[in-house]
Structure formats: structure tokens, C-alpha cells
């Protein structure tokens, strides 16, 4: 199974208890975690990315163990080879579109230069039709463009798995349909492995993937 997730996490707040106990495995290239808000979808995604440490269980992608409570393996996010597209895209407001896309190519303590452009960045700018806004700051571009920048930034380091958190929720409804088609076409063209979470049945229909339903922190069988 190329994506094999089984995690347990107890979240205790002053006034809130939530028990996450999610297990699924799939070979599909498009996996969709579907459920209402508060079902634990985002927590699951964060655990796969390494941003949330589960209490127990394992996360394996393409046969590599990213997390395993039994053997004490817990790779930090930077070593997981997994990309994450956040719901509101989390573009860096102090960087241009091109710098955002090239972000993970620059190592060390300095951000990518505004002038020098890596060929991989140039290719993605072309692929996502972002050439015209390459030097604009993220706050100056439209919602659809923002999503494309977030996707391009995620893809530049050729991750083995792309996590998408409600990828269409931040878009206005008129744009949503187009971006769904765009994402599906992109996935097929580049043969990406996607793990998408959504509360919107229309996303489920459009993505035609392996759908797993979550409710109250568990997989609905």
C-alpha cells in the first residue's frame, strides 16, 4: 500500500476532548478524506506531514516509515518528502511569487534571490501560467493564482505525496469548478499522488478518487 496511515491521538483542552483514531491504507493516486468539519481530517493531515505527533500508530508512504510509535521512528517534517498545501495557502507575504515557488530549493538561512531564477521555478511558472505575476507579492494576486502558487511551491521539490487541506474552500464558487478540473488534469499529467481532505461532496465527485469518510475522529466503515 503506497499510503498506510494508522494514528491515535488524544487531544485534551480545558473544555474540549477529542479522540483521533484513524486508520486507512490505499494504493490510489487520489485519496480523498471526506467528512464534516471537526471530524479530524486536518489533524490526520498534520500527522502525516509531521506537524502533529500522534500518541500511537504508524505512517508509511511508498514503503518508507515516516512515523512508527512501536520503533520510535518520527521523521521531522523536512525529511518526509511530503508536500502540504494549506487551506489558506500560507504563501509567504514577504516574498514574490517566484521566491515562494523556489522556497524549498534554497538551502541555508537565506531566502531565494529575487533576481536569479532556478530553471525548475521557471518551468513551474510556465506550467501554472504565472509568468506575468512572477515578481508580484503574494498579497497582490488573485485567489486562483494564489492556489496555483501554493501548488507550484509544493511540487518544486518533487514530493512523493502532496497533502491538500480543503484546496478549494478559499476560492469563490465561480472559480471552484475550474480549479477542480485544473487539479485533476495536473494530477494526471504529472502522475502525482494526492491526499486531499474536504467537507464538500462536489470535491469528492470531481476528484473521483478513493474516498474515505471520517466522522468524530474515526473512519466510517
Amino acid at each position, binding site marked *: 500500500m503506497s499510503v498506510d496511515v494508522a494514528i491515535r491521538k488524544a487531544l485534551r483542552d480545558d473544555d474540549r476532548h477529542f479522540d483521533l483514531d484513524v486508520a486507512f491504507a490505499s494504493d490510489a493516486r487520489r485519496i480523498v478524506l471526506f467528512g464534516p468539519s471537526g471530524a479530524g481530517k486536518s489533524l490526520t493531515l498534520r500527522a502525516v506531514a509531521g*506537524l502533529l505527533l500522534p500518541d500511537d500508530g504508524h505512517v508509511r508512504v511508498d514503503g518508507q516509515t515516516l512515523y512508527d510509535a512501536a520503533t520510535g521512528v518520527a521523521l521531522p517534517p*523536512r525529511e518526509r518528502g*511530503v*508536500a502540504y498545501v494549506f487551506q489558506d495557502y*500560507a504563501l*509567504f*507575504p*514577504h516574498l514574490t511569487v517566484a521566491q515562494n515557488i523556489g522556497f524549498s530549493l534554497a538551502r541555508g538561512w*537565506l531566502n531565494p534571490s529575487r533576481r536569479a531564477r532556478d530553471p525548475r521555478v521557471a518551468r513551474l511558472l510556465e506550467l501554472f501560467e504565472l509568468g506575468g505575476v512572477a515578481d508580484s507579492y503574494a*498579497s497582490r494576486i488573485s485567489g486562483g493564482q494564489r492556489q496555483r502558487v501554493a501548488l507550484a511551491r509544493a511540487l518544486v521539490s518533487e514530493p512523493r505525496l502532496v497533502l491538500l487541506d480543503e484546496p478549494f474552500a478559499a476560492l469563490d464558487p465561480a472559480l471552484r469548478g475550474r480549479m477542480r478540473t485544473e487539479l485533476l488534469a495536473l494530477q494526471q499529467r504529472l502522475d502525482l499522488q494526492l491526499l486531499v481532505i474536504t467537507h464538500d461532496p462536489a470535491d469528492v465527485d470531481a476528484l473521483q478518487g478513493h474516498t474515505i469518510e471520517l466522522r468524530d475522529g474515526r473512519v466510517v466503515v
Partner: protein
Amino acid sequence: MDSLWVPLLLTLKVALWATALNLVLGVAVAFGLSRWRSHAREVADAILTLPLVLPPTVLGYYLLVLLGRRGVFGEWLDRLGIELVFTWQGAVVASTLVAFPLVHKAARAAFEAVDPQLESAGRVLGLREAAVFFRISLPLAARGITAGALLAFARAMGEFGATLMIAGNLPGRTQTLSVAIYAAVQAGDDRGAAIMVAVTSVTCVVALLLAGWLAPAHLRRSRP
């Protein structure tokens, strides 16, 4: 004119050193505190804000007790060859202490305003924690930190009480503008005092205007 230039240059030297020290100290402490999840955090914050409310003479007294020849760290500093009482370096320490809360408060507010999601995005994109700080947190907080640093510079320019306590009033060596103004008024040199007052006021106004002007343009516009 020496009676103006000598204290003015000394004051600028002291204020610049104090601002530079505070940029490093204030930013490091503010970043640490903004990430520290503990109830002791607010206590630490209160102690670090004390220089803002304590009379500068009290701060100067503490400095003498701690750093003076017969002070707690006096012998230790002596062995390192560091002399702080009646030196301009002592004036730097006094100004740094008095202006510290201005940088620290501004930097802490700026760090806490950085969206944690952006830092998470950086981690997933392959950054270590130090790189997350230098490539995301620090640039996003830069505007607030710069504003705090310019306030601190203006405050250090005008520092009087603590400076007088530890560095004294030695013309040409430790006599900063604000101390020189006091000395001039005491000596009945009203014209000299008026010139120095004008110079101090203009320098402080320029520093405050720079605070807005130095902010990176794209951050200035995108803030709601």
C-alpha cells in the same frame, strides 16, 4: 562649537551601541519568550519590563551595585579588564538597560503576530528551526522590530538618570547631550543649553520619522 559636537558625537555613539546591543538581546529574548509555554513567562515579561517604569536613578543604582568596583560582578569585570564606572561603555550599559523594554515589547508583539501556519509551511518545505527563524519569522517581524529599535535609539539619546549614576558627568568622556544640557543650565549657559536641546529634539524626531520610512514597502501596504 566643541561644546556641542563632543557631547553630540558621544551621545550618538552611545545610542547606536545601545540600539545594536538591544537588537540582538531584545530580539533573542522576545523570540524565546514568544515560544515559551509556561506561566513563568508573564513573570519574566514583567521583570523585563521593569526598566520602563523604574526611575532611571534606581536602575543606575542597581548597575552600580552589580557592576561597580566593589559590586557583585566588579572583581570579575576587573579581571576581564572591563571598566564600566565613569566610562562611555558604562553609559552604553545604562542606555541599553533603559531602552531594552522598547525593543523587547515591540519584537515580542511582532513575533506573536507571525502566522504559525507560515512557520509550519517552512518546516514542511524542508527548513530547520534556525532557517525558519531567519527566513520566515524574522523578516515578517522586521517591521515591528525596526520600529522598536528606533524608539529605543531615541530613548537612548535622551537617557539621563542611569547614565549620570554610572558614567558620571566627565566632559569629553562621559558627558552626553542630556547630561551636558543639565550642566549648561546649572552653569547659567542658557544659549548652549538651548542649542543642545534643539539638536536632541531634531535627532529624536528624525529617528521617529525614519521608523515609518524604513519599513519594507510591500509589508507597509499589505497590512490591514
